[in-house]
C-alpha cells in the first residue's frame, strides 16, 4: 500500500511533482503512466526516501519508508537509472544489500535463480547488457520479499522474451497479494498487466482510473454505419445515451452508445438498407495520448499543420478528461 498525499517536489522554478494524491492498493498491478518528464521517477524516488518532498507526504504501508525497521521488506524498488557499482559482481552486490537486513545467503541465491542470473552472478555487473542489468535490479528489488514491488520502466531495454518474463512476474507478484506499482511511458505495455492506472503529466494527476474506465471515458466503441437514408436512421437510433455524428450530405454516421448488432437490427426493422456497419474501438494508446497530449514536454512534429490540428483537438479532449477525472 502506497499513499501519496499532496506530494510535491520543486527544483527551483520547475515543479516536477505537483500535489499528487493517489493510493496504490495491494493485490493489483497499478500502472503509473505519463510522458517523459511527467514526474514518475521523481515520485518513485520520493516513495523510497531518496528525494525529500518539498511538501506533502508519501507513506508506505502506513509509515514513511525510512521509519520501517526493514525497508527492503516493505518496498523493493527498481529505479530507472542503474544503481550498482560496475566493479562488483552481481552476487556480491546482492549479498551486500542482504547484509544490511540480515537476509540469508539462500535468499540471495533464490532471487538470482528467479531472475535467471545464475550463469553471470559471479561476473562484474559493469559488463552486463541492459537486459541483464534490469534483471539484476529486479533481483535486488525482490531480495527482501517485499510487500510492495515498485519498478520504474522495467521493460526498458529488454528483448521480447524479457518483456514477457516481466509481465508474468508482475501478475504473479500481484496474485501473491503484493502491491505492484510499475511505471511506463508506454500505455500498450502497461495495459497488458495493470488493472489500475495512475496517469500523470507535468507532475499533475491526470487520471486515477481503471483500464476499462479509461477506454469508456475516452469514448468507448464507435460504430461507423453507412446507409441509404442517414437522416431517417438518425431518428430511428436516437436515444438517451446515444450520440450520433455525421456530415450532412454524407451517407456515413458515427454512433456511440449502441452496439453494431443493435444498429443492424433496428435498421432492418425500419427497412433501411445498410452499406457498411463497422465497430471501431478507441485504443488505450489513443485514450492515453488524448489525456496527456497537453502535458508532453517535447513535441516532435512530422508536418507543421498536422501537429497543430492534432494539438487543438487533443487539448479539447484533455480538458474534458480532466474535468471528468476531477469530478
Amino acid at each position, binding site marked *: 500500500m502506497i499513499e501519496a498525499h499532496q506530494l510535491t517536489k520543486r527544483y527551483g522554478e520547475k515543479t516536477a511533482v505537483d500535489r499528487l494524491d493517489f493510493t496504490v492498493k495491494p493485490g493489483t498491478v497499478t500502472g503509473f503512466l505519463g510522458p517523459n518528464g511527467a514526474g514518475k521517477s521523481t515520485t518513485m524516488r520520493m516513495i523510497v526516501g531518496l528525494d525529500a518532498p518539498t511538501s506533502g507526504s508519501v507513506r508506505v504501508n502506513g509509515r514513511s519508508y525510512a521509519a520501517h*525497521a526493514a525497508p527492503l521488506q516493505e518496498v523493493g524498488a527498481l529505479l530507472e537509472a542503474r544503481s550498482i557499482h560496475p566493479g562488483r559482481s552481481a552476487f556480491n552486490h546482492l549479498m551486500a544489500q542482504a*547484509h544490511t537486513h540480515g537476509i540469508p545467503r539462500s535468499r540471495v541465491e533464490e532471487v538470482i535463480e528467479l531472475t535467471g542470473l545464475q550463469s553471470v552472478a559471479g561476473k562484474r555487473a559493469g559488463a552486463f547488457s541492459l537486459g541483464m542489468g534490469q534483471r539484476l535490479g529486479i533481483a535486488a528489488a525482490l531480495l527482501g520479499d517485499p510487500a510492495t514491488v515498485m519498478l520504474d520502466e522495467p521493460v526498458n531495454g529488454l528483448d521480447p522474451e524479457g518483456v514477457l518474463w516481466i509481465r508474468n512476474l508482475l501478475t504473479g507478484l500481484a496474485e501473491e497479494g503484493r502491491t505492484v506499482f510499475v511505471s511506463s511511458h508506454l500505455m500498450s505495455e502497461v495495459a497488458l498487466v495493470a488493472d489500475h492506472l495512475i496517469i500523470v503529466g507535468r507532475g499533475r494527476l491526470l487520471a486515477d482510473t481503471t483500464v476499462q474506465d479509461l477506454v469508456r471515458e475516452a469514448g468507448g466503441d464507435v460504430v461507423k454505419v453507412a446507409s441509404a437514408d442517414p437522416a431517417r436512421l438518425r431518428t430511428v437510433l436516437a436515444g438517451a445515451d446515444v450520440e450520433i455524428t455525421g456530415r450532412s450530405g454524407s451517407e456515413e454516421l458515427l454512433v456511440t452508445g449502441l452496439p453494431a448488432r443493435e444498429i443492424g437490427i433496428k435498421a432492418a426493422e425500419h427497412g433501411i438498407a445498410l452499406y457498411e456497419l463497422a465497430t471501431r474501438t478507441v485504443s488505450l494508446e489513443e485514450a492515453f495520448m488524448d489525456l496527456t497530449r497537453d502535458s508532453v514536454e517535447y513535441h516532435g512534429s512530422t508536418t507543421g499543420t498536422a501537429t497543430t490540428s492534432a494539438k487543438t483537438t487533443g487539448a479539447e479532449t484533455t480538458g474534458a478528461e480532466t474535468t471528468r477525472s476531477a469530478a
Partner: protein
Amino acid sequence: MSTIAPTQTPASPTVQRPAGPAYRVTAARVLRAEWAKMWSLRSTWITLGLGLLFLVAFGLIAAFQFKSRITSGRPMDRDFADATALSLSLFGTNFAQLALGVLGVLVAAGEYSTGMIRSTLAAVPRRLPVLWSKATVYGLTALLLATVGVFVAFAADSQIVSSTRAAMTLSDAGVVRSLLGAGLYLALVGVIGVALGMLLRSVAGGISVLVASLMLVPGLVSLLPSSWQSHISPYLPSHAGEAMFTLHHDATTLSPGAGLAVFLGWTVLALAGAAVRLVRTDA
C-alpha cells in the same frame, strides 16, 4: 533475531500473503554490509596494496640511500642530515597518505559516481549509519595496514642503519609512540577521505580537496606574514598530523597529544559536514 513465533501472523485483511521472516536493519549489519562492499571491489585491494608498498618500499629506499651516503662519505643534503632510523622509516607516509586518502574518497564518492548510493540508501534510508559504517570499516582497515606498514619499515630500517649514527631501536624513547602516531595519522587521513567523498559526492572533487588541504595549503600559508604563520601553521591538518609522529618537537610545532587532538578535530569537522550533507540533500 527471530523473536516472532512463526504461528503469529499479522492480522492484515488486505494482504493474504504469509508473513515472511522478520528482517531488520541494525548498526552491526550495516557495518557488515559496508565491510562486504569494500572488499568486493578490486580497487580496494590494489590501492591498499599500493599504500603498503609505498610505506615499506620508500622507507627501505630512504634507509639504503642514507647508508650508502654514510659509507661513501658523500655530503648529506638537508633531508638526511639529522635523519634517524625512525624518520627514514616514515619516509613513505607522504606517499601512503595519498593512496589511503584517495581510497577513502573512492569508498564514499564512488557510490555516487556509479549510482550505487541509490541501492545503499534504499536499504538504509536513515542514511547516517552508512557514513559511520564506512568511516569505521575503512578507518580500522587503514589503521591496521598503516600500523603494520610503519612497524615493518622501522624493523627493516633499524637493521639497515644499525651501525650508523641514525641507529635506533623500538626501546628508544618516543619510537613506539611515533610509529603508532603515524599509523593513526594515516588511518585518520583515510577517514577524512571518506568524509570528503560523502561531502562532495565526486571522486575528482574529493581527491582535489584532500590533496589541496594536505599538500597545497601548507605551502600557501608559508606565504603569509610570519607573525600570522606561527599562529596558523601548527594547526593545519598536515602539520598537526605530523606532530603525531615526529620525534622532536620545538616551539613551532604542537606536542604529539595536541597534534592528535587538532587532527581529530579536523576529522570530526569533515565527518560532520558529510553527515549534514548526507541527511539534508537528495541522493
